[in-house]
């Protein structure tokens, strides 16, 4: 990269929040950059979550996070249309499994309503059974609301960033920041890809935001971390849950089972203390505890149907009271906005982006709207979820839609090539954009065609291909290296 021209704003971190912010910034005239240390947007903690857009009913009254969740479902619905990404509508059902828990439901309703949420219904066991036939008979009462949603975060991150780039944003992937200096009213960032200069900085670095803060001179920002385990279930049991079903919440768990945007079930979250920031380890105990959470809500749920388990780190900051978000200009460094958030980061993301842009303007960033702003971005047809007539049409238009490479999720060569051409240059990048490798066999059939597609489209050697960026090589070499070294026609 070398030394690039100075940016007006540099956003550090392309998680879902950074991606939203970048897209909002791209509506304004100016030079903007988005830095991401991983190989793809939303490859960090944003994708290691439940991916749900909830009501703000577990946000304390008067909290910033609660305010920022206002109108989230309708904002996401609108963004889904603009960005051509999936948004699956579901309801929210908070159940009480004992009479003592009913008070929790009342409190949740109150919290939600004070943040502007409407449409809550307190319901009894019969109605619960109607809505969710597989919920435990122990459920004595429920708090039900319709019109919420689930998304697949990596798709959203990609779409937001693609749209922002379309509108002039500079995206720098695999770019980590190691130092920041103040010089002539701007900031010089030393990164793994060279030096970048920006007048304003947005610290949206998630679990690394304390490190970025320290680089700027804000030494007393500290993060408290929890590691949460989540499980994904086979589509064969998707019929067990129709809405986001919540149970109880504590330091050690957030009991939540829900459909995913693409038809699986996701269950979480069992919390433990991580050993360190990069600790993603999931132990047998973590899996068992998480299954327990699920079985309490859905007794017929079986561990046998788990197809994947993963963990995510959830940070909370030491600046805001009551575990609230802290989104504010730096007290030390002019023109730096710290975005210290946690859950519900996804739901609040549109609100967070608005707030950050406002704060930047307050700090002196330019205001002129970009007249040429392109607010829509087109995705590409997804074969698996198309109706038969749609399938016929897209195969007719592009025969490579007839070549199924991922049999479990019915992902075709056309989609895989499109994802690669649009920027997915790792196995996981292709996986998260197309779903190839996310099905029953978890890639044991399609990993090879995906690897070969990356080799062919990018013109790279097979040994260059990684799972998710530097160091995660998929293969190490070739058989018969001696003969291959000899070259053709030996």
């Amino acid at each position, binding site marked *: 990269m070398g030394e690039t021209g100075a940016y007006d704003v540099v956003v550090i971190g392309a998680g879902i929040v950074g991606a939203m912010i970048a897209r909002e910034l791209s509506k304004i005239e100016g030079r903007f950059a988005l830095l991401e240390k991983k190989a793809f947007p939303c490859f960090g903690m944003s994708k290691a979550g439940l991916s749900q857009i909830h009501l703000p009913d577990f946000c304390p009254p008067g909290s910033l996070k609660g305010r920022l969740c206002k109108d989230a479902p309708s904002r996401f619905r609108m963004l889904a249309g603009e960005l051509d990404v999936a948004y699956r509508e579901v309801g929210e059902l908070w159940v009480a499994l004992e009479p003592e828990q009913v008070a929790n439901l009342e409190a949740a309703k109150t919290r939600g309503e004070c943040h502007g949420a409407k449409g809550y219904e307190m319901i009894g066991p019969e109605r619960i059974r109607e809505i969710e036939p597989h919920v435990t008979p122990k459920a004595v009462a429920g708090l039900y609301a319709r019109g919420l949603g689930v998304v697949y975060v990596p798709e959203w991150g990609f779409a937001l960033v693609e749209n922002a780039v379309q509108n002039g944003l500079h995206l720098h992937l695999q770019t980590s920041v190691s130092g920041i200096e103040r010089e002539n009213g701007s900031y010089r960032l030393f990164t793994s890809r060279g030096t970048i200069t920006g007048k304003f900085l947005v610290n949206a670095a998630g679990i690394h935001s304390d490190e970025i803060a320290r680089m700027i001179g804000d030494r007393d920002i500290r993060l408290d971390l929890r590691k949460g385990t989540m499980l*994904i279930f086979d589509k064969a049991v998707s019929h067990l849950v129709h809405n986001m079903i919540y149970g109880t919440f504590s330091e050690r768990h957030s009991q939540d089972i829900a459909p995913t945007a693409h038809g699986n079930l996701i269950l979480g979250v069992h919390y433990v203390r991580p050993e360190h920031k*990069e600790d*993603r*380890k*999931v*132990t*047998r105990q*973590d*899996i068992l505890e998480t299954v327990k959470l699920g079985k309490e809500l859905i007794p017929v749920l079986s*561990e046998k149907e*788990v*197809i*994947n*388990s*993963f963990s995510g780190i959830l940070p909370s900051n030491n600046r805001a009271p009551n575990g609230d978000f802290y989104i504010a200009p730096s007290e030390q460094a002019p023109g730096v906005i710290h975005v210290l958030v946690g859950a519900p980061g996804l739901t609040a993301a549109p609100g967070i982006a608005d707030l950050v842009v406002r704060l930047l303007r307050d700090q002196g960033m330019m205001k002129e709207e970009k007249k040429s702003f392109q607010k829509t971005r087109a995705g590409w047809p997804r074969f698996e979820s198309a109706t*038969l007539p749609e*399938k*016929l049409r897209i*195969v*007719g238009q592009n*025969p*490579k839609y*007839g*070549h*199924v490479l991922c*049999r*479990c999720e*019915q992902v075709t*060569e056309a989609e895989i090539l499109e994802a690669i051409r649009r920027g997915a240059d790792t*196995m996981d990048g292709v996986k998260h954009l197309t779903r190839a490798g996310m099905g*029953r*066999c*978890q*890639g*044991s*059939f399609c*990993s*090879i065609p995906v*690897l*070969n597609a990356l080799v062919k489209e990018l013109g790279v050697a*097979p040994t260059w291909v*990684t*799972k*998710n*960026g*530097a*160091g*995660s*090589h*998929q*293969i*190490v*070499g*070739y*058989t*018969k290296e001696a003969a*291959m070294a000899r070259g053709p026609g030996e």
Partner: protein
Amino acid sequence: MMRTSHIDLAVIGAGPAGLAAAVEAKHLGVKDLVVFERDERPGGILRQCIHAGFGLEKFNEELTGPEYANRYIKMAESWGIDISLDTTVLDIDKNRTLTVVSEQGGLRQVACKSVILAMGCRERPRGALGIPGTRPAGVFTAGHAQRLINVEGYMPGRTVVILGSGDIGLIMARRLTLEGAQVKAVAEILPYASGLIRNVVQCLNDFAIPLLLRHTVAEIHGDRRVEGVTLVQVDDRWNPVEGTEQFIECDTLLLSVGLIPENELSKAAGVMIDPKTGGAYVSDYFESGVEGLFSCGNVLHVNDVVDNVSLEGESAAYGAFRRIKGLPAESSVISIEGDETIGQIVPQRITGLRDVTFHLRVKRPMKKFILQVGDRFEKKYPYARPSEMIWVKVPGDIFRDVRGSIIVHCEETS
């Protein structure tokens, strides 16, 4: 509008089961048949099984996988069998209409008189095993690694630990070693190797690769790429024994821990699946519970000898042929149940009007036992292991006057 063609017989899968079924169907006189294969070449899993050990019964020779497949591919060619490659069957309905797609042929429907399901199986992945630890690159199922090495010429890693001593794991231990990798250990949760003894000798002993019985992987380490695994000993209930953890440095973990018949299409058509086999409930004509849908090979139940897979294909072809010819359907009224000594058995229901060959596995290793079919038939065996399927032919007349069900049981005599 979507085209619909009409054929007599669709065979789904051009592996050993499908090819044998197609060849036999032609031999019997079925005219209008198509084999649908999603890979770019026929042969199924045999393409990547380059080791020898196939064909001893069928051809009286010890062939490699590709050589065995080649025999059937040549037979298919000489019969002029239409094998539609790079073609995926997306759906089957209970009226035997297939929805099929390929780059060449587009999206179309195929209405069939009979369908033979020969889709084979998939491997149990890490996600389903819940192996604790991080999620680095370098974790492969053994079959995936086999294809990487044998078909693509890619080396998955340089220092390897293999979980599972089934034949695939053992074969891969040898293959990797011959290609210059170091296989540090094969871990097996059972107290005995689950693959053939010949493979333990030729794949592990020959190369001094340690076989750690009663062991499993407790944790995978590594941030970007595998850096090592922690193995741990287990007790009789497969619980880890505290204090027995050992860390083995490696850059690759191969998982050879189970095959699952690939019945998603079958289920979509309404075929009921036997939880003991993971495959369809079938009659002695290999017909599933859905009329006109027949099942054979690894999609019916995981086999260990490919010659038997071909025989199953032939049997399914005969069943399909009878239906195409309009021969009277015989009701399979007698249900066959294996008791707790039997791991799995097919067919699970029979007509009782003819001789039947049962294909079964014992639940646990047995020595000197008598296999009993109800109180009507018995046969002595010196030994049996779950990993070796038993084929037992039972004369049809023993089922005379039988109604309801017959229990199959193994009685140890020593």
